[in-house]
């Protein structure tokens, strides 16, 4: 390096200039505008802090439960209040901590790990965060008004559909959580596209950090697991609000349909919690073994295999519902099979430790805790996978123990390990090792003291969700010990929180790469800059910091890709999915309040609907739609001032890409997969009712009009064809044809949606009379609403074309709208095929 005095060194000056421009482009807004930030470094931290706040709240609820159960016949809480407390404890832990914390951690560290400046849709992350915050406060706040949900976190009907027994709490649960689920799906889309398209050049598919593999799998799982619950929520809320009898056996419904839909979500959910947490372990273990993971392919096997198998386990939550033994057998088999990939990853970790030189540290201590606790939870899991054994312990405290061993061992302990490990990335400083030992031992011992005895109390016959138990059943001592353990556990956690929030002004910054890790997130300077990585390196190994000599210096000196922000814009690289060849320089949007407004108004729809304030709901919905359209109009598909730019090292990349090569198209595709999963769940509902009824459709109920259904389908397919034509004509240089085709398409789509509604309206299908007309109505409304959404998109494209932001060369919007319409056409076809043809066939 040139040793000339600083300030006169042209290289130094170049770097200073670059850093100044980068800093300006990525600057975090100050003052009250701070809350308009969208960068992952801010949103990720808010997300993490908020999920932990909810976790502490739910933890306090957990302690209340333990106080109540400390002695027999306790009257510390009333039964009804206790029911709210345990329902909210489970709900908050699952929906407001376990899933969001994965999204929070991933949003925070994934870009760093992939040497990306940000994820491809920062405003989507911010939108998701605000949805999460609003929905979470709404759900948690209900308990202070005595209005919290009280039906257990899986809300079984008919108890929870009964308006007299389950008050507004059930609506708060359904609507508040649906809102949060939407945010989770948004985060999943963001993370999938991020993993596939935002890797650094050269990071081929065989070099991705294991964390990213897990996140990819979990993202895909969310896209398929959450929509069935949203579909279930729709049915549930229609029954509660409008008396449509989906779960009412007197009118053809069946409470078991909810259990199916809930657990099709609910079991993958367990692995959606577990996999990203164990992913943190997969990063920590190699670092402290000081060698690459041994068995990379095995971990990929485990992550992908678990992801798939976890969708074949849901009925093991329904082993006691009296289903035929053979049905239980299938799920028992899959539940045993999933133990194989789970075991494999444990042994990969042990093998890596065995082959390395292990350095003791606080994160490793928690990895130990993970192994000790999770392995036990997994073993009891294998036991309850056997239906005959499950019949005995199902819904007892044995299950309470089992689920806490898996979720705390496989979720919380790895996350705490991750907090100790990644803390320097966020604050530039380490947490205390001395306190860390205390935290670990208090948590570890407290946890086992609290939950080990529950195995025994469950076997002795203590059911879960009881607010009291009588004396003389041999449960007194076990419960008292559990309560003491819970407080020890909580003390450990409080100590951790104190260590995180204590002021650490005097403490020096940690060294760069303080643990001597091998992966890219440790390139970051201490303290970090909001641009993330100074320049984007070319990668040629799995552990670049260990194996690519001088990489850190090259990156820090801005000698790699994108070292500058010449135009003052935020930019990151887009690469190909398999070999990570750079293909685009993506401009990502900066701070804005519009996402906050969009979330607030969308949230308003859910909150007002809970209280049946329909006018406010409508107004909020219109404002929300307006905010989202404005966000799309001002913040996406921006036409760059030049077609391509030099990203350094002699590479020039386009600034704009549309169609299957653009990240927006991928996001639309993934979103539509989720949409189809929800639609498939509704179709499943239709055939479920056919299965359980000897006569379905019932002879005394009118069928929807086949003529109107057919007309609706023809019109919607016409709209689809016109949309496809519009894209083609536009690309051929004829924006006028695009406008004409889309305008006609919008007319056809509106008419088609109306025809579908008429198909149920005209024959007089009464959705409150029986489940058959109700499920027909739901399918038609679903399709019609999608049709109208398609109309909005068509009009948006016409407006874009007129305003000059959609041109033959810059045509992202029409590509994405066409993609939506492909799925729309499929939806319309399936709906009409099922509703018109099936009644004729049976």
């Amino acid at each position: 390096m040139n040793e000339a005095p600083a300030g006169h060194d042209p290289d130094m000056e170049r770097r200073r200039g670059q850093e100044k421009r980068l800093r300006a482009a990525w600057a975090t807004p100050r003052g009250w505008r701070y809350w308009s930030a969208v960068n992952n470094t801010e949103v990720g931290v808010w997300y993490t802090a908020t999920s932990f706040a909810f976790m502490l709240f739910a933890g306090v609820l957990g302690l209340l439960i333990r106080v109540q159960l400390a002695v027999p016949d306790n009257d510390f809480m009333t039964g009804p209040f206790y029911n709210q407390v345990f329902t909210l404890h489970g709900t908050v832990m699952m929906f407001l901590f376990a899933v969001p914390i994965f999204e929070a951690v991933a949003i925070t560290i994934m870009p760093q790990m992939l040497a990306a400046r940000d994820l491809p849709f920062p405003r989507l992350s911010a939108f998701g965060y605000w949805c999460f915050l609003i929905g979470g406060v709404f759900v948690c706040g209900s308990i202070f008004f005595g209005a919290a949900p009280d039906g257990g976190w899986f809300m079984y009907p008919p108890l929870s559909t009964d308006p007299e027994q389950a008050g507004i709490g059930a609506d708060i649960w359904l609507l508040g959580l649906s809102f949060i689920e939407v945010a989770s799906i948004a985060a999943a889309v963001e993370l999938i596209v991020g993993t596939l398209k935002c890797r650094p050049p050269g990071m081929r598919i065989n070099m991705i950090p294991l964390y990213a593999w897990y996140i990819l799998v979990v993202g895909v799982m969310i896209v398929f697991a959450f929509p069935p619950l949203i579909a279930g929520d729709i049915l549930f809320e229609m029954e509660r609000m409008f008396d449509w009898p989906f779960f009412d056996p007197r009118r053809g419904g069946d409470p078991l349909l909810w259990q199916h839909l809930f657990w099709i979500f609910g079991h993958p959910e367990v692995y959606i919690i577990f996999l990203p947490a164990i992913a943190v372990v997969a990063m920590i273990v190699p670092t402290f073994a000081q060698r690459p993971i041994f068995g990379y392919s095995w971990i990929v096997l485990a992550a992908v295999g678990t992801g798939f198998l976890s969708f074949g386990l849901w009925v093991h939550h329904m082993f006691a519902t009296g289903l035929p033994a053979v049905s239980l057998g299938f799920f028992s088999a899959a539940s045993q099979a999933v133990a194989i990939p789970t075991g494999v990853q444990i042994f990969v970790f042990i093998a890596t430790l065995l082959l390395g030189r292990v350095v003791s540290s606080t994160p490793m201590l928690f990895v130990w805790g993970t192994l000790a606790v999770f392995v036990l939870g997994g073993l009891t899991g294998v036991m309850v996978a056997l239906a005959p054994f499950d019949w005995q312990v199902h819904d007892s405290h044995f299950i309470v123990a089992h689920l806490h061993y898996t979720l705390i061992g496989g979720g919380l302990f790895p996350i705490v390990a991750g907090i100790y490990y990644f803390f320097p990335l966020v604050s530039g400083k380490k947490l205390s090792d001395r306190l860390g030992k205390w935290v670990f031992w208090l948590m570890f011992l407290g946890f086992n003291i609290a939950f080990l005895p529950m195995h025994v109390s469950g076997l002795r016959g203590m059911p879960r969700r009881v607010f009291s138990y009588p004396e003389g059943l041999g449960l007194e001592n076990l419960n008292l010990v559990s309560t003491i353990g819970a407080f020890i556990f909580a003390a450990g956690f409080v100590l951790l929180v104190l260590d995180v929030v204590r002021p650490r002004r005097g403490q020096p910054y940690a060294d760069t790469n303080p643990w001597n890790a091998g992966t890219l997130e440790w390139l970051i300077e201490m303290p970090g800059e909001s641009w993330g990585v100074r320049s984007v390196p070319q990668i040629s190994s799995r552990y670049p910091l260990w194996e690519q000599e001088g990489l850190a210096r090259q990156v820090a000196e801005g000698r790699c890709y994108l070292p500058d922000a010449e135009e003052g814009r935020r930019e990151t690289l887009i690469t190909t999915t398999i070999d990570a060849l750079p293909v685009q320089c993506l401009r990502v949007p900066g701070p804005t309040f519009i996402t906050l407004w969009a979330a607030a108004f969308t949230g308003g729809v859910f909150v007002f609907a809970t209280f049946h304030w329909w006018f406010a709901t409508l107004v909020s919905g219109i404002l929300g739609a307006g905010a989202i359209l404005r966000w799309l109009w001002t913040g996406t598909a921006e036409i760059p001032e030049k077609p391509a730019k030099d990203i350094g090292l002699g590479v020039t990349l386009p600034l704009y890409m549309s169609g299957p090569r653009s990240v927006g198209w991928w996001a639309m595709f993934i979103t539509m997969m989720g949409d189809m999963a929800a639609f498939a769940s509704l179709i499943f509902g239709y055939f479920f009712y056919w299965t359980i009824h000897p006569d379905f459709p019932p002879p005394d109920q009118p069928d929807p009009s086949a003529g109107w259904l057919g007309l609706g389908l023809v019109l919607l397919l016409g709209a689809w064809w016109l949309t496809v034509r519009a894209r083609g004509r536009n690309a051929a240089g004829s924006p006028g044809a695009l406008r004409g085709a889309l305008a006609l398409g919008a007319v056809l789509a509106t008419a088609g949606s109306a025809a579908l509604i008429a198909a149920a309206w005209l024959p007089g299908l009464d959705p409150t009379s029986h489940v058959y007309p109700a499920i027909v109505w739901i399918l038609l409304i679903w399709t019609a609403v999608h049709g109208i959404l398609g109309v909005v998109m068509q009009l948006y494209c016409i407006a874009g074309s007129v305003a000059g932001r959609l041109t033959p060369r810059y045509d992202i919007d029409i590509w994405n709208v066409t993609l939506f319409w492909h799925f729309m056409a499929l939806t319309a076809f399936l709906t009409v095929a099922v509703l018109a043809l099936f009644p004729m066939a049976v």
Partner: protein
Amino acid sequence: MTRETRSPRNSLIVLSLGPTIWAVHFLASYVTAAIWCEKAGLGATLSPVQLLVGIFTLAALVAIGALGLSAWRHWGYLENEGPPHDADTEEERGRFLGLATLLLSGLSFVAVIYVALPVVFIADCR
């Protein structure tokens, strides 16, 4: 620089094909049994279901076997040094995908057999 050499084998779709076959087999078996037992009633024999699940299982195992075989060739264990396949070359990337596909095929193979076991031991709809 902006084109990657892609063959159908080098994709994440192929990687997840094994477990996808498992999922289809699983759903087909479960749905067949559930509908049969709901329509035929308590205590009905499972013979038709046993036959169908047997056919599904055979088909799934053959498909997974073929996939595994192709993955084995793709991995080319006999011609290379074996894992970790972490080098920055297209060959190594291909071998990694081959190995991962092979492992997933193995898991799917076992899981398909597991899912077929219930109809061996359970003969009626109780």
